[in-house]
């Protein structure tokens, strides 16, 4: 069978995918104070992963990223629920979020919020769901 030579695509992908992933992480972390958040970050991450799948093929990416994306869904959901349930430890209502300012050696003073953990759960779920859906449909014969 004739195999396409998609050298340009692969080369640019290896560059773009990293930029995309970086942007996705930025969106996730910046969500609390500027546009972004777990949902968009997750979508962007899945976009990056999908781009890799498109240019390198499923087998290569599976070797590169040995992650079962289906398991990401319950992990993300568990994080989100655990963030909510964690408020019980401090005797406050379910899903009470809190935040504080801490001084970390390298970064200086930064803000840490429990809402961030919740966003992380959302992020994982979105990544898991999006890639699962597209891969299952794509692999279907």
């Amino acid at each position: 069978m004739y195999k396409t030579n998609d050298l340009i695509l692969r080369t640019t992908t290896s560059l773009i995918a990293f930029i995309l992933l970086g942007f996705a992480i930025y969106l996730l972390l910046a969500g609390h104070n500027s546009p972004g958040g777990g949902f968009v970050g997750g979508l962007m991450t899945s976009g990056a992963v999908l781009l890799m799948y498109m240019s390198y093929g499923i087998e290569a990416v599976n070797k590169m990223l040995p992650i079962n994306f289906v398991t990401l869904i319950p992990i993300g959901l568990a994080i989100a629920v655990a963030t909510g349930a964690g408020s019980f430890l401090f005797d406050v209502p379910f899903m009470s979020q809190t935040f504080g300012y801490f001084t970390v050696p390298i970064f200086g003073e930064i803000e840490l919020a429990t809402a961030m953990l919740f966003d992380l759960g959302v992020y994982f779920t979105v990544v898991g769901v999006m890639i699962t859906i597209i891969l299952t449909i794509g692999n279907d014969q």
Partner: protein
Amino acid sequence: MLTVNIAIIIPFLAAIFIPFINKKYPNIHIGWFALFVPATLFVTLARYIPTIAGGKTYVYTINWIPSYGINFTTYLDGLSMIFALLITGIGSLVVIYSIYYLSSKESLSHFYVYLLLFMGAMLGVVFSDNIMVLYVFWELTSISSFLLIAFWYHRKKSRQGAKKSLLITISGGFGMLIGFIMLSGIADTLSIREIVLTIGDNTDHPLFLPAMLLILLGAFTKSAQFPFHIWLPDAMEAPTPVSAYLHSATMVKAGIYLVARFTPVFGGEQTWFWLVSGVGLLTLFWGSFNAIRQTDLKALLAYSTVSQLGMIMSMFGMGSAALHFGYSTESVVYTQATFAALFHLINHSTFKGALFMVVGIVDHEVGTRDLRRLGGLITIMPATFTIALIGSFSMAGLPPFNGFLSKEMFFTAALNISQLDIFALDTWGTLLPVIAWIGSVFTFVYSMIIVFQTFFGPYQKEKLDLPAHGASRGMLVSPIILAVFVVGIFFFPNLVGKYLINPAMTTIFPRLAVEGDLGQTITIWHGFQPELYMTIGVIAVGTFLYIFRNYWKGIYSLFPEKWTFNELYYFSLTQLEDGSAAVTKSYMTGFLRDYLLYIYLFFIVAIGGILFYTGAFSFDLTGDEPVTMFEWSIIIVMIIAGITILFAKSRLTAVLLNGVLGYSIAVLFVIFRAPDLALTQIIVETVTTVLFLVCYYYMPEWKKENKPTRTKRINLIISIAVGIVFVLVALSVQSGKLFESISGYFENAYELAGGKNIVNAILGDFRAFDTMLEVVVLLIAGIGVYTLIKLKAGKEDENIEDQ
């Protein structure tokens, strides 16, 4: 007095144990255990006869649902005493009879469980003082009777008969329930005793008449009154002990009991009088008239039961006229009809029970109940013949049997009532004794048919299934006891009158009884009165009609089969089924398009209608922002794309145009300063467009649908109407702000949640619960797609629903 409550519960408890005992002692006929229950109850209740006759009554309450006033209250007085003795007494005899009648191959534990259920329910009906509890037991009798009629459920006719009786009695029961609810609304109590005490002030209540009619409906359906009598002949498919017990002595008398019990509530009203006595007389005539044409002995007895019940019912109707007056010697005369009704109630139970058992014996020993095949059995079964003779002659109203006494009293009552000048009786009153007399003539004729066609004439050996022989002794025990009662009551009627009927009269005429004695003495010989001449006339004309019956039987062919109520019942049943099937089929088309049409039509009519009728539509542009150039251009693009989708020739075009819409919305989000939304919208739109393309890659070419123009027009109208309604609603909502937005609170997001992005703070902090559940939605969608595609049932898998 707790005894009565326990008496109701005992049969139910016994019914629970019957299957276990049957399993443990398979060699002993389980009927002997069942017999223990009614016999004990009969003895226990009979011990109260003297105190009840002394005017004492017993009330006992067990709380059931006290907050609604529904309590298990029992009330033992003269009226319930008569019925309870009939239920337990005849119940015992029927159990003895059934022990010999049913072979041990039948599923006996079912039979006795149903029978005991019925017995307990029936006792509950007659003892209950609370109308809701009465209704519960009333329906229990219907259900247990349904189970008993279909005891031989492998026969089609049994199932049909059971279904018919259930449909008719339950519909009447529902009517009765509504009547009860109305009545409790009028009287503000659920206790019958309290209703009787207070109803005098409420007779002009608007619900009084509907309540009366509905309760009568219940009583008429249960007691097989015209035109609801059609279930009773079909119920004859039940085993004969069941017919003897339920369909002659007890269940069909539940309606009579209800009428008697509610006579102090509704009696004295013209509607009640005419309905009860009129329907009763009509039933008396129609039942006796139809009994003669029957060729099956049990069907004949069924029609005769219908006829006799009509007679009892009409007497209760006539007696209710006495309540129209205050107490005086005159009005006491009219209570005589009620007295006669109660007397005949007892008499009918004795002789009809005996007759059914006789028929059962004949059927059991000869193998047929067909009158055309029977004959000449007198020498073979002399004992059975004697009992049949006693029963039939008593039913015909001949001395020296108890039926004679009650028939005489019936004539007296009818004659007395026809003298009254209330309730338009001066016009129509003379009809009452005439119809009563004609009905009695027919009664005489069919009573003779039972005796003479079965036991006299030639013995047709070749036509019978079994070689005829005498009945076993055990089967004869119960009918003999009943026959002894038939004769005994004739010679000592005043024992029954004093100890059983007089206390019951006090219940039915509570206000009259306070002021004087309602007791009657029954005299066997009352001189040469008009009623005696009427009886002689009955015998003379009846004998004449019986002898020449072959000459006038042609009269029955005047009524073709098509015109019977039975046919009407089946016709309306099939019409109902066909009609509902047609209606359902007309709108449940199976096309999604039609269902969407209904949904949109509902939306248009409900929302649009409300908007229109409440005048909620408002249109106010004053507070609105000016529309900029950017917005205009984006909106025009969207309009063009939206309209073009409708005319797209290929699927790809439609998908891409849909994408245009999505990206335009994202641009609008940017313009309206919603960066998070815009980001998400762009990515989601991209992903969905890709998904669309992936899916449609596998789909066949988009064919132009050649829908009829009419459908297209309807679609156009519906879609435009939905759009208009939606826009109107949106405009009205926009223009009519009722209060300030709460968004001011969220502007403090930095202090409260430590986030400068308000949207994200709302999603992750203020309203994180929603977000969590949306993540769950995503999870479900992902798993759904995964399972849909990965797990496929093979095509060869059988569809269970289609089996």
